[in-house]
């Protein structure tokens, strides 16, 4: 069996402290294989974004481990962690997160600038990414002056500019009309064909169906996982059960 690119074990995320403490994720177990496209679906507030942030090593879990390429993320040095995020990961944030006063081009080059790439190379790669999302003509615009859909596409351009191995996309089609949405979807699956692992948080059932696998989250738990080899939280958590293969077919269960 191939090693999963990302594996999480008993992931727990608690926000706040004491009286305001809120458990957003409750013992999540998940294995994501290389080259897979995974749709994370669920109601608003169920913990999808929280999970994505933890998978992308943007935040630390309260309990449990995130294992990337077989290495426990807690064992990584800060510098390795930064390099990993900068080189191998691409993010599309739900709220875009752009620097509104900078130009579109500056926003897209940001990951390359952080990587310490030369200006010329930065420009070339960024323009290529912008062409891919059909916004090359907006390169010199202030990011703030774009429409919502355009902003979303800029964010996608920024996420792919560094040729990531894993792309995390939180609602990548949330603000797009169906035509543009389809373009973006085509783009994403085009990347998957090139070997990129896709982890997409979405409300869009159509998009979710196009993915190899659907993981449904509700109330901080995985309630449904279309992948047969994947363990779900319906199983009692076992210690060091990586090798256990449980054939399980789309069993949607309620509370447990």
């Amino acid at each position, binding site marked *: 069996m191939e090693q999963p690119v990302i594996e999480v074990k008993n992931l727990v995320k608690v926000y706040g402290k004491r009286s305001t403490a809120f458990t957003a994720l409750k013992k999540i177990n998940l294995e994501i294989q290389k080259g897979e496209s995974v749709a994370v679906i669920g109601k608003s507030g169920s913990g999808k974004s929280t999970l994505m942030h933890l998978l992308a090593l943007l935040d630390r879990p309260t309990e449990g481990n995130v294992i990337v390429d077989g290495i426990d993320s807690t064992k990584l040095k*800060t510098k390795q962690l930064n390099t*990993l*995020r900068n080189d191998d990961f691409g993010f599309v944030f739900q709220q875009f*997160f752009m620097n509104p*006063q900078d130009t579109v081009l500056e926003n897209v080059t*940001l990951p390359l600038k*952080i990587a310490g790439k030369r200006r010329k190379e930065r420009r070339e790669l960024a323009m290529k990414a912008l062409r891919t999302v059909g916004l090359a003509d907006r390169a010199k615009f202030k990011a703030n002056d774009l429409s919502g859909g355009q902003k979303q596409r800029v964010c996608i351009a920024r996420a792919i500019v560094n040729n990531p191995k894993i792309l995390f996309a939180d609602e990548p089609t949330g603000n797009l009309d169906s035509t543009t949405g389809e373009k973006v979807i085509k783009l994403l699956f085009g990347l998957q064909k090139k070997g990129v692992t896709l982890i997409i948080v979405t409300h869009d059932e159509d998009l979710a169906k196009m993915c190899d696998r659907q993981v449904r989250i509700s109330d901080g738990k995985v309630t449904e996982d279309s992948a047969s080899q994947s363990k779900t939280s319906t199983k009692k958590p076992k210690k060091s059960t990586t090798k256990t293969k449980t054939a399980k077919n789309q069993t949607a269960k309620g509370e447990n």
Partner: protein
Amino acid sequence: MKFFDILRTANHNLFRNKVRTMLTVIAIFVGSFTIILNVAINTGVNSFIDEQTASLGGDNFIMLMPSGSSEMASSMVASSEPVEFVEKKTGETEVGAFSDEDIEKLKQIDGIDADSFYSPAPLSGTGYYASDKTDKKYEIQNLMILPPGNFKIPLAAGELVDQNEEAKKKNQVVLAPGYREALGYETDEDIIGQTITIGIKNEILDKWTAIDVEVVGVEASGIVSSSMGTLISHAVYDALADAVYEGYPSEYRDNQPNYYIMATYDTNRFSEDEIKQAIADAGYEAWTVSDMMGMIRTFFDAIMIVFTIFGSIALLAAAIGIINTLLMSVEERTREIGLDKALGMSSGRVFTEFAVEAISLGFWGSAFGVVVAMFIGTLANSAVHAPGGFLAELPTFNLFEFTASNIIPFMIIIMFIAFLAGTIPAWKAAHKNPIDALRYE
């Protein structure tokens, strides 16, 4: 490349909020302006004092006097105005002089360099200066040959009397400040190369001798230069001595009293106080360079301490301004920092960006401070040296002196203070958790 990026980013960020940046720069400017002016005065005063010290032969110089003659010495420090000459019948009053035994005793004092003993043997007979330009005559001052050694006497014009063998035969003088005008010349340059007359009286024969001498230089007014009196060449000294001692027994001329002795002492082994104590124990008095410079230095030091305190308070306020500016900036840019960090920027680099911003603020503030201070200092220098200005009499005294060696370390210090102030906000920025920062509204 990376460093250049950081520098660009930092300055770009400073430009985003121009008003706030400018106000912070002004705060730093005020502090650095005050201090750099102060540093410039300090440099100016010290280089002037050093120049004056050099005219005494350096820090190891000591003037030995018979006990009780400080009063005479102090009259030499205060610049004496030319006194109109009126012929007197009476001889000069005798001041205490060193005997041969005294000199031997002084040479035995540990630390004093016996070989350095030099007694200028002033020709202190009755005499006058005269020139073609005026009917008045002026009483002579100390007439002395330039002591051998390291004496750098600041000149307002011309050159020092030549010291080589050939030149010793020429009748040359360097006039003390003030005499040029008294002798009827407009500027210091005008009198250079002119011939004036020194008249001297032989008391025994009651006979006057006039010697024509060429003025080769005019001493700059200083704090101590008047103690040099008029510097004369060997030829002038010999001619005057021949006239003064004509008819005296030859022993008399050879055994002129030494009223004071210039010497050097070992500054490595003895402090000024120690050597003075040793000399006092032997029953003599001594003046060190500090005695002559001390009052002036103390005065300027006091002023400078006051200014430094003002400047430092202003800088402290400026440093708080830097902290405030950058903290606000960190607050404003929280999401941006979060994004940078989410995309893999290291905490170190976030810290560096903010630190570089702080250093840039320090740079601009101090650079403006220096430029404006130099401008004002230069204006002030020419104002105080203009006729009627309070330093008009001391042409070599630059009140404000700006040099690379006082400006550059100063700017580095300001930038360092700015950096220190910047570390607080920079640390705060660097330690943000990316997701929390991104969620910040």
